[in-house]
């Protein structure tokens, strides 16, 4: 995996507040990177800096090992957070115009647009005015416009806002397909569930600083609390279970036909096999799995830590 984008000590201050201070990270080619952070953390500023819309006070952005320039950015697909369309223009006309701004010629834009409109089942909207469409419908059109010119880099700011679950899923599937095709995607979102589904890596920005950055799997391992969920059926010898020294019982609740127990491993040198062997003696195990923290948990934990 080579570096496609390198963000190097970016700082940006506005008159009243610091938006970014010394933020650095790499974006590898062909992965989906989630750009996370609370409201006002500086995500949108960072995205605008990568897009050359805002100039940073200091720091540099590299694209394929060279300083990024406007021509690179024009080839990116960009869906800003504050997005819209000309209300009085027709959908098809406008899509054609905006894709020509991205450097496509009219003919290929027309062919590609027809393809996408068929795929998203919105071919009948072509001659409608934008103001006749609902917000979600407009988002669909905007999504198509941002990916139409087959960019190698996609930058999406809150792409799922305004979508119903069906359409949000449609967009997710498209993003995964594009990732398979080698497109690099930078995704800013508050929707942690979609981060778990889509992202390979994350960058977490809090109060203008990069506070957590890395592969989703590794981060989950780092932040895991050695919790295990065990489900038994039938009789559970709770007293026997409580006498074990390797773990501590976090919760113990009856469920249909059995018992659900969450354990925290105290001695980290103990392997899961040893743990299972010990548990086999207290009851009939139906399932055993490690509980990894969700992105939600990690987000809240890291943000609270850095705020204190």
């Amino acid at each position, binding site marked *: 995996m080579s570096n496609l984008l390198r963000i190097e000590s970016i700082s940006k201050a506005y008159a009243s507040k610091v938006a970014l201070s010394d933020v650095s990270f790499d974006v590898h080619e062909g992965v989906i990177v989630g750009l996370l952070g609370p409201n006002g953390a500086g995500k949108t500023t960072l995205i605008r800096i990568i897009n050359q819309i805002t*100039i940073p006070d200091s720091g540099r952005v590299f694209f394929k090992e060279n300083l990024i320039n406007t021509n690179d950015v024009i080839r990116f697909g960009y869906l800003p957070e504050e997005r819209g*369309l000309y209300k009085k223009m027709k959908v098809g006309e406008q899509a054609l115009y905006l894709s020509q*701004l991205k450097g496509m010629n009219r003919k290929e834009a027309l062919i590609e647009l027809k393809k996408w409109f068929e795929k998203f089942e919105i071919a009948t909207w072509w001659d409608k005015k934008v103001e006749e469409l609902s917000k979600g419908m407009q988002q669909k059109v905007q999504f198509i416009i941002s990916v139409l010119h087959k960019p190698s880099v996609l930058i999406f700011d809150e792409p799922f806002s305004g979508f119903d679950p069906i359409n949000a899923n449609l967009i997710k599937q498209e993003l995964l397909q594009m990732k398979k095709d080698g497109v690099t995607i930078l995704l800013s979102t508050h929707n942690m569930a979609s981060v778990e589904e889509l992202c390979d890596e994350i960058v977490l920005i809090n109060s203008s600083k990069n506070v957590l950055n890395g592969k989703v799997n590794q981060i989950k391992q780092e932040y895991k609390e050695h919790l295990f969920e065990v489900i038994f059926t039938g009789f559970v010898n709770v007293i026997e279970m409580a006498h074990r020294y390797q773990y501590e019982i976090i919760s113990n609740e009856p469920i249909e036909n059995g018992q659900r127990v969450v354990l925290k491993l105290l001695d980290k040198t103990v392997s899961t096999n040893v743990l299972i062997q010990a548990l086999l003696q207290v009851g009939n195990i139906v399932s055993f799995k490690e509980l990894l923290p969700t992105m939600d948990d990690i987000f809240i934990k890291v943000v609270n830590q850095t705020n204190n």
Partner: protein
Amino acid sequence: MAALFIVPAWIANLEDDEDKLIAVVDSSRLFQHILPETDKIHFIYLNKGTVNDAEKEIAKNHYYAVLYIPPTVLSTPIVTMSSPKQPSLAVRMHIMSSLKSQIESFKLIKKEIDPEVIQSVKTDVKVGVIKLNDDGTREVKSSDLQMVIGFVGGFLIYIFIFMYGAQVMRGVIEEKTNRIVEVIISSVKPFQLMMGKIIGIALVGLTQFLIWGVLTFSIVSIASSVMMKNNHLIDKQIQGVSLMEKNSNQVANNVQTDFSESEVSVIFESIKDIDFGVMIFSFLFYFIFGYLMYSALFAAIGGAVDNDADTQQFMLPITIPLILSIVLISNIINNPEGPIAFWFSMIPLTSPVVMMVRIPFGVPWTQVMLSASILIATFIFTTWLAGKIYKTGILLYGKKVTYKDLYKWIRYKN
């Protein structure tokens, strides 16, 4: 635009096409059958009965009004007109002027003065303006035409700057409130977007102006040929009014003919004088650069605010110089070489309108060049300024911007 001129003229013509029969009760017995009539105004002289009798029969006899001339009219010139409706101004004017000239000539006769003598001493003084050129040649000039051309040219520039400038501003606000602006500036630079908007609307404006010009010209020429007939009627009315005077002062008229002929030729001379190439060129120049300068400022306002309502506070400093230049037009027409005319045609915010008013009167080319260069320089400056404000403003939502903020934005590096 053409309709703007033609419709009122047409309506004014429409208004008075009713035949008006006016009953005259003349107790003085001085005005029997001598009041001049027109196509629409006719008099019937009632010798029997009183005013009251005539008034009672107004409806029956379809009189428009009853005119009562008291016996004392020569000493106290007051007559009364009674009518069920308000008599029109035209009718009153007609009666007033006919009675006036009649009474005047009666008085003269009474004092044994020949009315012709009075007419022959009436004098109309004209001032012929001769312009002494630098090369020693002399030109006969009439400034009436220059006044009209200057006024119309200046006023058109004012209207266009306002109209299309506001259109630029609304366009920018629309892009901002539609939230499309960030989508577009990921493809083009903000400055390009702003200039594209300004130049695009300028081209729309010029096209519209061209269409208006062609339409106005053709409609006016069609309308004037259609109205020719009506105009003849009006002419006759006017002739009717002054018929009496004219009959009695043939001599004087003959004397005046020479003057008026030369006056007409001076006006023709001054039409030839005005170089329409220069006029059109300077109109286009001051329109285009005045517009570019102002619309950059309008675009900056549009970029800085969130909606139309917030534009007020920033509009004021832009509209004041524009309105000031319109207010100054009459002053400048009176004295196109004076200090006010000079300075306001140099100040770039007023020069497009003010210089346009001055040019038909003839302005030294050094002044035109100076004013034009200042205007171009200011245009470059305002565009740079607007670019800075615009770039920061268009990405900022939901904040009420103050002048202090604008100053900060201008000072941002890059």
